[in-house]
């Protein structure tokens, strides 16, 4: 009990730092240190033929080459004319994917959470059913959709072609594949949103709804003035982490359509790392990805600050 008693009489700041120590110790070793290393790699030259992958120090040349479109990266097929720089293509794919997936996942997750928030017989089984997709490993999720849209195995490719939406082999067409990846992601990760929103809903005092009903609030007004403000903090955290995750999409693409068909920014990192051994360039792409995500996160934090539970 001695150390705990010592803690009791420390100032709020000291207490805060002591409690943060385990978290930051973990993060320092596993995250901050590797990131610093990777950053230092990104300032070195690529060496594709030599035994070590890194050459001499070249400052920010890798970043300049990427931003001007001169970097030597495996080209993708999104723009067959090769006119658009690869980074720009990847940025477009990544942003489009993040915005669309988070939008749909939020809406569907919200719907699922509202259903699960009701009291009904068999709720626990419905809850499990709705969460099950999230429990399926990405590799398997990818396999399901790969097989479904595989022209020889799956039924979905034929079906979508027959109603004129997809081409004959959707997994080699950039637009079709993008939609497949999007649907696969929404299928799996809506549950993430649903779980967090549900947790927010569950901690709302039910009495508030009675008060609202007595004062004549319509269901929509109850939603707008009670539900939404009270789950806003949980919702924003869910959307924040979903956005960051969506911006880093790689595994699902790699295992369905492939990085050549739907190039995301994380795809670029991996292809540069594995296919061309351009480790320094890959490190630079990783940091550029982080910068893009950082800008988006900033927008989120500003709105988080405006809610009560936020970062004040």
């Amino acid at each position, binding site marked *: 009990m001695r150390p705990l*008693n010592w803690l009791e009489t420390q*100032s709020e700041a000291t207490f805060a730092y002591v409690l943060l120590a385990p978290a930051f110790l973990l993060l320092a070793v596993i995250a901050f240190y590797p990131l610093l290393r990777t950053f230092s790699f990104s300032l070195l030259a690529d060496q594709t033929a030599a035994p070590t992958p890194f050459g001499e120090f070249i400052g920010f040349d890798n970043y300049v080459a990427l931003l001007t479109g001169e970097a030597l990266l495996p080209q993708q097929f999104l723009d067959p004319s090769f006119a658009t720089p690869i980074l720009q293509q990847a940025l477009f794919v990544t942003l489009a994917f993040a915005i669309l997936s988070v939008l749909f996942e939020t809406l569907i997750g919200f719907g699922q959470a509202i259903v699960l928030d009701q009291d009904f017989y068999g709720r626990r089984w419905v809850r499990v059913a709705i969460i099950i997709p999230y429990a399926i490993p990405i590799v398997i999720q990818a396999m399901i959709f790969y097989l479904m849209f595989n022209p020889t195995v799956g039924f979905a490719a034929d079906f979508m072609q027959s109603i004129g939406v997809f081409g004959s082999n959707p997994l080699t067409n950039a637009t079709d594949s993008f939609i497949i990846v999007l649907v696969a992601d929404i299928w799996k990760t809506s549950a993430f949103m649903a779980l967090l929103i549900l947790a927010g809903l569950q901690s709302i005092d039910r009495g508030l709804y009675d008060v609202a009903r007595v004062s004549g609030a319509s269901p929509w007004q109850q939603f707008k003035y009670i539900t939404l403000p009270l789950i806003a903090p949980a919702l924003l955290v869910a959307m924040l982490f979903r956005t960051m995750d969506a911006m880093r999409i790689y595994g699902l693409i790699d295992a369905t359509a492939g990085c050549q068909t739907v190039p995301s920014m994380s795809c670029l990192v991996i292809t540069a790392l594995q296919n061309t051994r351009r480790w320094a360039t890959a490190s630079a792409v990783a940091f550029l990805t982080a910068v893009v995500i950082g800008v988006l996160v900033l927008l989120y934090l500003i709105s988080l600050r405006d809610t009560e539970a936020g970062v004040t």
Partner: protein
Amino acid sequence: MASVTLQDITKQYEDVTAVDDMNLEIRDGEFITFVGPSGCGKSTTMETIAGLTLPTEGSISIGERDVTDLPPKDRGISMVFQNIALFPHMDVYENVSFGLRLRKYDQEEIDRRVDQAADIVQLEGMMDRMPKEMSGGQRQRVAIARAIVREPDVFLMDEPLANLDAELRVHMRTQLQRLHRELDTTIIYVTHDQAQAMTMSDRIVVINGGVLQQVAPPLECYNEPANRFVAGFIGSPAMNFLEGEVVDGGFESEYTNIDFDPGTHGVSPGQEITVGVRPEDVFLEEDSHKAASPTKAFDAVVDVLEPMGKEMNAYLLFDREVEASAEGRGKGQLLINLVPDTDIEEGDDIRIVMDRENIHLFDRASGDAITHSLE
């Protein structure tokens, strides 16, 4: 049961001084009330006694023990909070016995004490209710039971009645006094409501802007306020203040003058002072026999009448030119307290006298009281 001593307590937040160099001796078994407007530092002071806030400077002892560096749990205190703060996931029994269970009392002792506490606050038969299922008054009684069950040396109450309706508040007020009598424990009570402070306490501690204004029994604070702030804060409706200057032979302001001998009352001509007179110490001229020592009569106009049942408040203007201020009592306005059946109408011209025995003088610059009687 124990005394509490605050020595040079200062609490500073980044750029605000919440409590400024406070020294206070609270006697064993005393019911003492910290009173002041919201944000005056009374709650912060109580939190430093509880150990929930660490003072920037100074020391606190409870009994003979210096508790400045002890966590709340080791200070021998218990506390009732403004928002009641029952643990919503525990039933009444678990709430009340929480502190005893933490201290690993044996089950028999816990049950005995919980029963006893429940008996005192009349909670028998409600032991397995959840806080959610109880009314505000019942929850408050659970909170009090939780506080008394540990038989603390000092009992802290932070606005415990603030969230109750008016009727319940009055009822709980007498309950708390009875409780104090039964337990015979030191009680420190925080409120912004001077009525609670007046009715319950042995002594009250008036605080403003983090600074101690006066520590005295309620009637002393009422009759002999240490400064203008205390005079205005204690007593309802609040004291009238007239600002003016000492002249040869008395006090003079824009609307009034009062005769007295400056020399015998510790003021000198030219000094800027404030005269304070309570509404109940002003009378109509025809009732001047009710004043122990009436002043000469002044002219006034009746602005607004407020019949209260057992009494009537009359808002007066010194003359018809005065414009009634929208914010409180302004210059040239006076509030007086009359018997309910007084025969006057709004708009009447009347003549009034003050009771010299209860006229207070305050130094305008410092606000300190100079005298509490002009006799």
